[in-house]
């Protein structure tokens, strides 16, 4: 048995490069679509990575815009939408005391707000003489609020009236950590319902430069040149972005949930470099969230051949897959979405299991698998009721999410 508590999902919402509805996302994943295109946000043609997968729709019009950068607006949107869905499905949630609703946020970290900063910085001198007069005085009065580390959390709490336990976590693993924190709080009875939100964007110029130079992001100039994750010649992922939210309650609530979830996070011992987690770290985390072998895995899809091979080898040796297991790669279609990955994968996987359909690893030609684990190279039917999602971040951090739908044979 997994040592971790299982929570029931009663509401979800997401914004991804391939859609803002779980069913739309699944349809596009099943069609083998990839969201990558030349970076639509700015001219990245001279950068070491120039492809990107952006959320195509702007945030909804909001009076919060003055307080929140773009990704924060998406985060509040999905939080509100997920809770609204859950309140429709579960009458008890509609009447739940605000003091019993917890809010757990995870995001990758703030990015440099270039538009704001350039106004303040353009006339600065290296010795910082008269820095106020030279530009800092031009900062918008709400600059600090826009940079506030928990601004999306605070506005979401206000919007959904959440007054229970709350936490904002950050870093490459923050989504998995927020999810693990939410399920632990539910299990301990600290809250009766938890809204968990994760968001991240890897589309900032500095990320394309730094991660592109390190080979973590693809150097392909066109989608046609792009190698899929788990291709033996894969040489970097596509940077993506996403926001996603889950509404969780304890599994003993009487109504049937959308799915059940367990989450774990961890890291390589003593790691501090830029690389993703070792395969054995991912396998160890997988064992924490599973109660038996699974036949569906959504891989970390780092699209770096050595890392992909190590992940597949670790999955094989950990004996957590059934003989007929198939591996898919949501993040191969969406791009790497940083801290948002575990929640996005949870929604995509659960929707796929509920539909009885497994998407392929987009762009992966048949027969080009990097290991012995069988990869889904085309959309296929599945009767699986349980699945595993893995995610990888820099500095050796990894996350694992176990998903089950009604009728799972274990758990």
């Amino acid at each position: 048995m997994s040592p971790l508590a299982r929570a029931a999902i009663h509401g979800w919402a997401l914004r991804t490069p391939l859609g803002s509805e779980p069913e739309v996302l699944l349809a596009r994943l099943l069609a083998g679509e990839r969201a990558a295109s030349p970076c639509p946000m700015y001219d990245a043609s001279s950068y070491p990575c120039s492809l990107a997968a952006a959320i195509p729709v702007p945030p909804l019009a909001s009076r919060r815009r003055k307080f929140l950068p773009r990704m924060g607006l998406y985060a509040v949107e999905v939080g509100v939408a997920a809770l609204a869905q859950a309140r429709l499905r579960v009458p008890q949630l509609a009447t739940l005391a605000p003091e019993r609703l917890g809010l757990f946020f995870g995001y990758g970290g703030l990015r440099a707000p270039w538009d704001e900063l350039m106004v303040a910085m353009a006339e600065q001198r290296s010795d910082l003489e008269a820095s106020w007069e030279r530009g800092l005085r031009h900062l918008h009065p709400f600059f600090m609020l826009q940079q506030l580390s928990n601004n999306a959390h605070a506005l979401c709490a206000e919007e959904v009236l959440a007054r229970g336990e709350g936490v904002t976590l950050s870093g490459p693993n923050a989504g998995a950590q927020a999810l693990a924190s939410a399920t632990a709080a539910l299990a301990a009875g600290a809250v009766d319902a938890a809204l968990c939100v994760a968001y991240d964007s890897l589309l900032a110029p500095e990320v394309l430069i730094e991660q592109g130079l390190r080979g973590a992001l693809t150097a392909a100039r066109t989608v046609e040149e792009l190698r899929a994750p788990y291709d033996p010649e894969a040489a970097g992922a596509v940077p993506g972005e996403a926001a996603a939210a889950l509404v969780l309650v304890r599994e003993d609530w009487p109504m049937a949930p959308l799915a059940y979830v367990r989450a774990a996070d961890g890291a390589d011992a003593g790691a501090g470099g830029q690389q993703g987690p070792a395969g054995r770290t991912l396998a160890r985390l997988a064992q924490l969230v599973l109660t038996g072998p699974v036949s569906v895995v959504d891989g970390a899809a780092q699209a770096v051949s050595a890392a992909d091979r190590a992940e597949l080898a670790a999955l094989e040796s950990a004996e957590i897959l059934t003989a007929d297991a198939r591996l898919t790669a949501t993040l191969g279609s969406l791009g790497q979405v940083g801290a948002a990955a575990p929640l996005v994968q949870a929604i995509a996987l659960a929707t796929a299991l509920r539909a009885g359909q497994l998407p392929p690893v987009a762009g992966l030609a048949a027969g080009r698998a990097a290991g012995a684990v069988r990869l889904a190279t085309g959309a296929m039917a599945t009767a699986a009721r349980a699945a595993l999602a893995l995610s990888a971040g820099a500095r050796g951090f990894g996350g694992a999410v176990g998903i089950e739908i009604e009728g799972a044979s274990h758990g």
Partner: protein
Amino acid sequence: MSEVVITGVGVVSPFGIGLAPFFAGLRAGGCAVGPIRHFDASALPVQVAGEVPLPFRTCAPCALPLMQLCQTRLGIILDERSQAALYQADHAGALADRKVVFATLAALEAWRDAGCGEAERRAPSYLGLGLELGLLDDLTDLLDAQGGGPLDFDRDRGEPLVRLRAPVDLGASVVRRLLGLQAAAVVNVSACAAGALAIADAAALIRRGHAQVVLCGGADSMVNPLGLGGMARLGAPSPRAAADACRPFDRRRDGLVIGEGAALFVLEAAERAAARGARVYARVLGWGSTQDGYRVTAPRPDGSQAARAMQQALRRAGVSPDGDAVGYINAHGTGTPLNDPAEAHAIAAVFGDRTPELPVSSIKGAVGHLMAAAGALELAACLLAFTDDLLPGTAHHREPDPDCPIRVLGPGPQPARIEVALSNSFGFGGQNACLAIGRPRP
């Protein structure tokens, strides 16, 4: 359910490097707020801060002076592995960030203080960290190099021309490598409640049996032009460039003073600490976490959710607010017009008739507001009540405010023997945290 105890403390504060100068400053009723020295702030609207007296500039390679500082101020000589980790961090530019340097020093002191070694290296770390806003030096380099043009990079060196923004978990990453910690780090960025919530998470982990030892706390610095400039535009700091710029709960209060520093703790299951004969500073009895759900720019005026955080902490601690167990509250006490009355109302709501006799103080007048690290440093201040039977004073509090109907201690420390202390941290955006700690068992 394991009892949780504090067995190691590391502090970097405006009073100096280490727990000893911090306690000495509090014992003396001192004030470490003064003119900013590590860069020219004369043209900024904010010119005073609770600045850590670091004897070297962090923007230059600083692994060597940092190691010297460890040796001279903390008596710590790094082993070969830790030295290598420090040089690696320096090479990667990580030590250019003051809060990373603070976290490093505090972690080393806490780890040594607790007598941790190889057996404790599996400890998870929970850090409350502020976000990187110390961009100004780097940005001026960038603009000089490129004339304000689009971002570029150095293909020959294989890296960007400048470090544009440090990863938010940089400090945690450096500490993990330095101490050789095996477990993951969790970075809490819940604004001014981050440090306290990181400690609460760590305590929960131990109490629920998921860990035996956890390194936790907070580190932050916004004492840089962009941090100060941004806060000034927001109107949060006191407009007065004086050492008494922050006057918590005082009728004349007009804003906060920004501080910087770090406080890290080794939390441990009590039975484990007892088995190895570790010194215990205090027991972590309870914690509370709530959200205002009110406004991002202001606390709830009635303090009702802040009160609930205190009630949660007391409930977990098994302590009644009606009895005389709670002998002291270290308030969030920012010295801003809105925060202090809201907190005072919250305290009064929890403690009712006991409120007029219950000692409350805020150390922010003495050291400034350490933002993400505030709750951690203030928990360290509470330990003085058990180590010295002294309650820290409230620097610059001279004229009580009728809108803050609580018993605020004056500038000097007050002798008292207490059993339980509360430490409040109420973050911008309405995230509230409260920690309850108790005197060690005899």
